[in-house]
């Protein structure tokens, strides 16, 4: 059994009271995310964990670990999305992060949740790429999301 303070079930607000270690590693990766404090050396923010990492946590169970909600508005917003929208948005943001000159990506709650993409250098080719990614994203997404490209 694992301490309930260590494990938060994926995409749900309630905590699982217990968890059997006999569940396969794949299930662990798919179903659970570790939430911990940044001051703690064993911290992982909403990161899917592997079975061996989980064992490490179990062995350190006496170390006080607190559950913290992320303060990042984009991550908070992502947590409100259904699985399909969330994975589509994650995929798009991963593509955008790989584009040169892309800096911070953050969320602003305007009329529509708006993802602000900061460019260290405004460049029309890059803007075009970003909006083509948005084009493909809108075809998959049920949630309303806007992209806004701004200089850093």
């Amino acid at each position, binding site marked *: 059994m694992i301490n309930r303070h260590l494990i938060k079930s994926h995409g749900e607000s309630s905590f699982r009271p217990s968890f059997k270690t006999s569940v396969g590693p794949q299930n662990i990766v798919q179903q659970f995310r570790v939430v911990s404090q940044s001051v703690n050396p064993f911290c992982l923010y909403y990161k899917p964990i592997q079975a061996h990492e989980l064992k490490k946590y179990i062995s350190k169970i006496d170390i006080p670990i607190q559950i913290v909600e992320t303060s990042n508005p984009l991550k908070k917003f992502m947590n409100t999305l259904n699985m399909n929208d969330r994975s589509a948005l994650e995929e798009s943001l991963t593509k955008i992060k790989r584009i040169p000159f892309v800096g911070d990506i953050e969320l602003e709650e305007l009329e529509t949740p708006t993802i602000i993409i900061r460019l260290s250098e405004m460049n*029309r080719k890059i*803007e*075009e790429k970003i*909006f083509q990614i948005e084009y493909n994203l*809108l075809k998959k997404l049920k949630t309303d999301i*806007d992209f806004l490209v*701004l*200089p850093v």
Partner: protein
Amino acid sequence: MQHKSKAQHNEQFLITLGSSSEFIDWKFVVLYYSALHFGDAFIAKKGISYIKNHKERKKLYADKLPSEVYASYRMLENASIIARYRPEKSYVLTDKEFLDLCSIDFPKLKTLV
């Protein structure tokens, strides 16, 4: 047809602003609204004559326009948002940026109808 007239009307207004940079922010805004009405005219030809808001428009454009035209529309919109709501970033609204939008992106919307 009404959307096309409105688009042309806005385009005419843009010409009256001339080549001065004094009101460059408004030139970006007018260019965007002209492009928007060309886009709406295209959507009207597909049987949807009234678009409620920008949310709905964006979905319809993503659905009905080719990706490069959609990207151009969004670049025009992005610049107009900076012009209207982000004065601290308005240094990116240069004459060159305006000319690029005018000569590369705007015609993609205009030639839809």
